[in-house]
């Protein structure tokens, strides 16, 4: 049997996985610390993609311009996230889950139309900068430079998050906040800033992954609905609230999807959905999740 | 004395933390058994294992010889368990009447009744139950507006609504004033003695424990220290040692 497709699909799967991890980690982090499922995460992803499309046009097709656009787009989404948290999301802490879910859901509706208002309904075209358009061969697979960038950033985020959570003071506070918010309040730590910060970080990650994906996917209103389902599948498989679980979920998704796309392109979505169903049946809290759902 | 429930080698580990290690004892039928021990001894874990909220890491629980170790809570309740919680668990938004009625509707075929009005069921039984627990005046009050003591009475009434074989009370006297405690203890003992219900409860109030318990089980750091008749436990040196240094029981006359 000709296995030459394997390395190519693995690369493709890894790329998808690492980029999706960047997005999903934000979702998982927000849930882990604040207990809120951010439905608008897909919208923030979309915002990142659209911002990059415009900024890339503005800042030129050079490598530096592109990187600057990536940076600005991600930070912008992070700031928007912080604002959302400060003024809106924070009003929901302690309220019934029903209301929390309905509210972040209403944000999706608003953000979707905001994007339409600013950018219109047409697809945005995003060109990869010349510097990153090339490719090279590795172990029988063609790796594009852009793939490498995505995988690289993905790994950087994995390491960065690990370092942040396990090796810094702030990270300790974040982990403590996810365990017991009341206790932290009693200790006098400023929980509000942690909450805003975590949401901003989550939004930043969503925006970053959206910006990174922009040259590869169709940047069009409606991409928020697509991505949020994918994110849900990933966190259900991996376990919501656990970053290690999110990484595992992303890898499972990425690899399964890319291999299925090779053989049965139409069925790819259903294969991952089936994986989700299997996980739910055998291990409802996700592969590495805490027993919350 | 026949044993209603037998517990064998029960252990529970939570990702590395051994909450309970190899606990085994028997709960005699028709008697009052108390589980005591310092904070962190594993009393709640034991309770949750017996009532089915948790599944043990190892060990077995038997109800009249039948293995119920992995039976889900609702099935155990249908086998004759009734339970109250440390943090009073009733339907706050419903009236007392509705609370009691819901308790009676929960088991049996009424669950799948879709057409008849619920208020047509159990009206007289609800009233009888309410009067047994001195809640007749409160029947139309919203549960969450009642005093803490009254809510605990309601919860107790709900737990016995289906005439269970065994009643499990988790810190039934928590947060009660001395007066409320007296009333509550009298009500509980009355209820179980009259109906031959087996009672298992955990408590911090040692005086009450020695006053009403037939059998006492002592836990410390997840292990069984001693179990047996109250008088025997009172004189047990190990039990005294465990409680030495626990400021809330040091001066307790019950242990002198």
């Amino acid at each position, binding site marked *: 049997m000709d296995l030459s497709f394997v390395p190519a699909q693995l690369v493709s799967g890894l790329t998808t996985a690492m980029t999706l991890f960047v997005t999903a980690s934000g979702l998982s982090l927000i849930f882990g610390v604040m207990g809120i499922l951010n439905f608008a995460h897909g919208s923030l992803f979309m915002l990142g993609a659209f911002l990059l499309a415009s900024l890339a046009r503005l800042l030129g097709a050079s490598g530096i311009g592109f990187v600057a656009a990536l940076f600005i787009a991600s930070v912008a989404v992070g700031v928007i996230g912080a604002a959302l948290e400060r003024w809106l999301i924070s009003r929901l802490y302690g309220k019934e889950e029903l209301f929390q879910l309905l509210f972040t859901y209403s944000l999706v509706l*608003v953000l979707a139309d905001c994007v339409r208002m600013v950018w219109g309904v047409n697809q945005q075209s995003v060109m990869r900068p010349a510097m990153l358009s090339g490719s090279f061969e590795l172990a029988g697979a063609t790796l594009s430079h852009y793939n490498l960038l995505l995988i690289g950033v993905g790994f950087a985020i994995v390491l960065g998050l690990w370092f942040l959570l396990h090796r810094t003071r702030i990270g300790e506070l974040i982990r403590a906040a996810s365990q017991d918010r009341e206790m932290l309040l009693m200790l006098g730590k400023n929980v509000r800033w942690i909450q805003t910060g975590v949401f901003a970080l989550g939004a930043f990650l969503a925006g970053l992954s959206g910006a990174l994906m922009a040259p590869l996917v169709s940047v069009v209103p409606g991409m928020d609905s697509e991505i949020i389902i994918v994110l849900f599948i990933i966190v259900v498989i991996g376990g919501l609230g656990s970053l290690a679980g999110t990484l595992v979920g992303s890898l499972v998704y990425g690899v399964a999807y890319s291999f299925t796309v090779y053989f049965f392109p139409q069925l790819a979505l259903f294969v991952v959905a089936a994986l989700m169903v299997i996980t739910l049946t055998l291990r409802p809290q996700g592969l590495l999740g805490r027993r919350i759902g | 004395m026949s044993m209603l429930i037998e517990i064998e080698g029960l252990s529970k580990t939570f990702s590395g933390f051994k909450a309970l290690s190899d606990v085994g004892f028997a709960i005699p039928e028709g008697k009052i058994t108390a589980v005591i021990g310092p904070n962190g001894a594993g009393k709640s874990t034991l309770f949750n294992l017996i009532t089915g909220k948790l599944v043990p890491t190892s060990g077995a629980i038997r109800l009249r010889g039948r293995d119920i170790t992995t039976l889900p809570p609702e099935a155990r309740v249908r086998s004759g368990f009734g339970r109250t919680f440390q943090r009073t668990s009733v339907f706050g938004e419903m009236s007392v009447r509705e609370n009691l009625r819901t308790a009676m509707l929960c088991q049996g075929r009424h669950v799948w009744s879709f057409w008849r009005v619920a208020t047509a069921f159990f009206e007289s039984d609800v009233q009888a139950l309410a009067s047994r627990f001195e809640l007749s005046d409160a029947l139309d009050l919203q549960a969450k507006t009642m005093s803490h003591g009254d809510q605990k009475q309601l919860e107790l009434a709900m737990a016995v609504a289906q005439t269970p074989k065994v009643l499990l009370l988790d810190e039934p006297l928590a947060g009660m004033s001395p007066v409320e405690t007296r009333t509550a203890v009298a009500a509980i003992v009355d209820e179980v003695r009259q109906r031959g219900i087996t009672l298992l409860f955990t408590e911090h109030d040692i005086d009450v424990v020695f006053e009403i318990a037939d059998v006492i089980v002592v836990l410390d750091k997840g292990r069984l220290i001693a179990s047996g008749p109250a008088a025997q436990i009172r004189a047990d040196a190990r039990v005294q040692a465990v409680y030495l240094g626990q400021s809330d029981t040091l001066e307790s006359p019950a242990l002198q």
Partner: protein
Amino acid sequence: MKSQIEAALALILFPLALGIGIFGSRLWLNFGAEVAIWALFAVSLNLLVGFGGMVSFGHAAYFGLGAYGAGLAAMRWGIGLVPATLIGMGLAALFALLFGMLCVRRSKVYFAMLTLAFSQLVWAVAFRWNDLSGGDQGINGLPMPQFGNLLGWTNQRWFYWICFVLLCAVLYLLYRLARSPFGTLLNAAKLNPERVQFLGTSVPRVQLVAFVIAGALAGLAGSLFAFHTRGLFPDYLFWTKGAEALNMVVLGGMNQLLGPVLGAATLLFINQEATAFTEYWSAVTGVMLGALILFAPGGLAGGLQRLLEAVTRKRARKAGQSVPDLEADLRRPQ
């Protein structure tokens, strides 16, 4: 108080509905049928959300499956309104059972995620399966239900009355259901699921039955919708359809049986007028939904309740009744 609000809502809506049926022009009959169908959809969703505390974001799936089931049956096999609708409902109920089994055992958050994920999967199938569903283009030209010229009424008038009568029938069914032992337990499971569990009832089982009932009723609405629009499009299955129903539930009031009906009428009315002004209807409903959640979660019906309470308090104070007594009266559960 609760039953008084219910009565108040009925007093407002019922005469309007009758008026449309008897005197309404073509336009009004069309609008009326649409309101009745959406009200049916929203009421079925509220059985889960408001009554059962189960936040389903994937209710559009059952609406759409009802539509496709009825529509395809009518077109492929040439059957009439009633059998087609039954097929649509059956299909919706079947999927509600299958998906429900995987969803109901979860925490609220997982339940929300999963219902949405499954719903989008169904949409994806309809979107791609060109042969069966017409793909992304959909199918046009569903035959209009014929009623001859019975009673001298047009087909349109007949269709409106059928939708209205079905809505009333379903409302009555749900009214009985809410007051039945099953309904009491479903509601109890919303208030305190652990207590229900420790009284001996399997909460997932009760919720699953509710989920299937809600799915079947959404399927009924969907079937009628297919005949109403005489077409089938994948966006009937898209999650935003469920979002619109959710908006109606929250706007009208999720604590009342008739709340979603009021919400449907209001939202569709505003929609008609507003789309002339703005194409950003999504944002408007999003802002409205968000504001309601934050400041008035009881919706319009809740506002009505507060109004009635304030009036009652004022009147009582005038009459000399002591306020604490009145507060106790108001606190009594309904």
